[in-house]
């Protein structure tokens, strides 16, 4: 017999109390990517000029640098959540599973930080005059 009240039983989402948060985060990041990825493709095709000078202005502009950073962060986060589910489903051995998940988490964090740092570095080195002359 449980000593929990009926309300406590209903409110308790299990011991960790965060059963739905993984699922929900996956949906939230999906909606963010639903907006960011079409922007990225359209903007890249619209940009056309891939030369170093043009592309640094494109990446480094105030709007593009923010949206690009959000894109890479949301994509890495969404990938982490999705790959985690795949690994949990198909890798049965606990030890291997933990190691694979660690590698995935570290790799995606490395990617996200590298991307944001690169965007920042470009954004801080491009002058406003360059951006005004460019298409950003």
């Amino acid at each position: 017999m449980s000593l929990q009240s009926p309300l406590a039983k209903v409110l308790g989402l299990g011991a960790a109390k965060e059963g739905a948060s993984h699922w929900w985060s996956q949906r939230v990041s999906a909606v963010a990517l639903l907006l960011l990825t079409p922007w990225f493709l359209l903007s890249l095709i619209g940009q056309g000029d891939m030369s170093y000078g043009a592309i640094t202005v494109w990446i480094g502009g105030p709007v593009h640098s923010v949206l690009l950073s959000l894109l890479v962060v949301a994509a890495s986060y969404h990938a982490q959540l999705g790959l985690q589910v795949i690994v949990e489903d198909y890798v049965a051995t606990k030890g291997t599973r933990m190691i694979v998940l660690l590698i995935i988490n570290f790799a995606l964090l490395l990617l996200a930080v590298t991307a944001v740092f690169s965007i920042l570095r470009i954004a801080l080195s491009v002058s406003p005059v360059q951006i005004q002359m460019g298409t950003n």
Partner: protein
Amino acid sequence: MTQRERPLSPFMHYRWQYTNTLSILHRLTGVFMSLGLVLLVYWLASAASGAAAYATALNILALPLIKFALFVALLSYYYHLFNGIRHLCWDMGWGFERAVARKAGWLVFVSAIVLTALTWMCLCLRIYAGGNGGLV
């Protein structure tokens, strides 16, 4: 330590149908895009590392094998995007009727192929063959 008989995952004993084909493709395309993310971050990092590194990156991105990888990533993107929208609709309780679910599945498939062809054409014309500093 004794290993208890564990329950099997549904995919181990269900009859093969279009629904699980679409589902496994969602996962597969997610993995492909995670690999594509590496190329995107490499491109950003190269632009942050100076003109020489960026020129090397452009040469690498123009390699036939990498171009093919980018094409697969693009196809994966559109499939995952449309199937993801289908998933979000399900989350809101829409589209569970047998006929609707089947139609939506086909719609995902066809729109992914059409939009990939369209976008790839734009990318080839604007970026790969772009006159001013475009990829070779």
